[in-house]
């Protein structure tokens, strides 16, 4: 079985947020429920201040702290699904301990105050147990893997678009959107990336494109000191997030 990993080349990323939009459209997430997001931040001060950005999906960690803390095994790492970390919405009790334990802040409890008004949940009330039912909805649903629109009271997260990736033919090494044979299985954020800054493939296969990129371009993992060992690698300059630095209150 493959071990799915993602490589994001920050030298190519333009911060256009197409990945974020594609993710929201593919997975019908609510505003603020940003399974995929691009962080914008600045580093340094004038005259050497820099504006930077960093795309951020779930890191699908090899040693995920969210899985260790979940008291119900609702959050689990599925080695038969390429090592993707899922949330079983039939088991999640909404204790939110996983959100506390995730160092990357990539878990969401969508049953919260709306980020934007009007509240989409009241405009499109949910059916079949879902928190909301938009006019168009991706028909793919698998609550045991946290795929679809979540019910109220559970935690949701990026699934590496497993509803697509999981259908890739056995033995697939690279899920490259430029390959017509596999493009339907490529995660939405990877497929939509205009500057082709994202790559997806099998980290267990030495010949995979992701492994070659990690080796050739010195791929790094973020917050590696936590020991979580992400399956998402970053290439290029700026693969870090500067420390929080509150601004003086006006």
């Amino acid at each position, binding site marked *: 079985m493959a071990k799915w990993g993602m490589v994001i080349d920050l030298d190519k990323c333009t911060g256009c947020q197409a990945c974020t939009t594609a993710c929201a459209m593919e997975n019908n997430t609510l505003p603020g429920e940003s399974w995929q997001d691009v962080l914008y931040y600045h580093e340094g001060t004038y005259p050497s201040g820099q504006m930077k950005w960093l795309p951020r999906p779930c890191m699908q960690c090899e040693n995920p702290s969210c899985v260790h*803390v979940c008291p119900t095994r609702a959050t689990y790492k599925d080695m038969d699904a390429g090592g993707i970390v899922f949330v079983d919405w039939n088991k999640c009790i909404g*204790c939110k301990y996983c959100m506390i334990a995730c*160092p990357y*802040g990539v878990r969401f409890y969508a049953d919260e105050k709306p980020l934007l008004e009007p509240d989409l949940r009241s405009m499109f009330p949910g059916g079949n147990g879902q928190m909301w039912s938009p006019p168009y909805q991706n028909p793919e649903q698998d609550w045991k893997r946290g795929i679809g629109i979540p019910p109220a009271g559970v935690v949701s997260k990026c699934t590496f678009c497993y509803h697509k990736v999981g259908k890739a033919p056995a033995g697939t090494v690279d899920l490259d959107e430029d390959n017509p044979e596999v493009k339907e299985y490529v995660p939405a954020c990877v497929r939509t990336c205009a500057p082709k800054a994202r790559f997806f493939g099998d980290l267990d296969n030495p010949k995979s494109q992701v492994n070659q990129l990690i080796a050739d371009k010195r791929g790094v993992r973020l917050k590696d000191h936590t020991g979580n060992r992400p399956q998402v690698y970053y290439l290029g300059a700026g693969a870090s997030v500067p420390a929080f630095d509150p601004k003086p209150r006006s």
Partner: protein
Amino acid sequence: MSNENIMKGTAGTGLLIVSAIVLLASFAFAMSNLGSQGHASLNTSSTLPWGQPIATYLYFALASSGLGLIASLPLVFGFKQFYPIVKRCIFLAFIILISGMAVLAMELGHVFRMLWVIPFNLQIQSAMFWMGVFYIADLAFLLWKFQKMETGDWDSKTSRQVGIASFLGVLLASGNLALIFGMMSMRPFWFDGLLPIYFYLTAVASGLAALVFFTYLAYGFSREGMPQRLRDLLEGSLPKLFAAVLGGTLLFIAVRAITGLYSNNPEIYHVWKDYLLASPVYHASLWLGLVLPFVVMLSASMRTQVGTQLLISVLVFGGLFAERYFFVVGGQVVPLFKGTWEWSLVEYAPSITEWSLTIMGSAMLFTLYVLGEKRLNLSAMPPATSESAGSTTAAQPAAAGS
């Protein structure tokens, strides 16, 4: 059973009615808001998932553990002068824990699902799993110990063993509760291997506050009708213990504050500088709720006075509740993994629904307390201890009330 227990009379009935009405009203209000708006009625968010309901649960759970630890003084360690409060301690520990669990249940996304998914999935890696195991064991041992006392069995071999088991249950439950926070290395404000010690100390402080307040409440805020041994305790060992525990608590807070402010780590430093010490509420809770009570309790003449003890217990109640709140929220106010994208700390203030949950828990505590005082003899103590009291109004044989 002392006839001076005013909770058995009309005053108790009045308090029971008022607290039951508050309990029902706050429960109905919270249920109505949670039913109509879901967790959008709470001010928690994906950036700050644990808010005041979790702080309330933490406060109640640790107050319960503190009472359990105080009860272990006579039951495990042989400090017999504490026998006059031990039965009330065990009862209060039980009902405070039940009240805290009720608040937690209202905060969870799927509380009934919890009842089967946790036992059927046995995720032993999770500290939260062990929290469930240890607090259920704690409840069971408290109940068992209380049942032994109700039947007048204070000192049999089984009774002593249950007392020791209860003590261990309390240590494991509250220590594990501390580790739920203390093991989170990704939350540096909480990450601390010594957090269980801090929790034990503050647990005993909040337990003592509850014990002093509810003991005086039972006797109409006067020592007149109290058994002599209970009076002796309230004028002797108990206020000294209270002062010592408050001192230990302040020492721990000072050490945490100093290391936090000295640290360059922004996830600790900014919590202390820009959140805790920048908050007038935190200052009020620290200086009025902990420092002032400690200073007052250092005075040998003041700490034995009824009014002082009552005031101190109320101040410590408030001070430690705020301490729990700022501890829980403080661990989350630095935006996680956002770097300089975020310009300020995460803002959070409890919603009216969250306040109603805190009020609901408190009202449940008062309701159960009055019911306990009415139905049970919480002032009972072992016969030998009663005899040594030498007071006719005081202690009655333990079995008398049962």
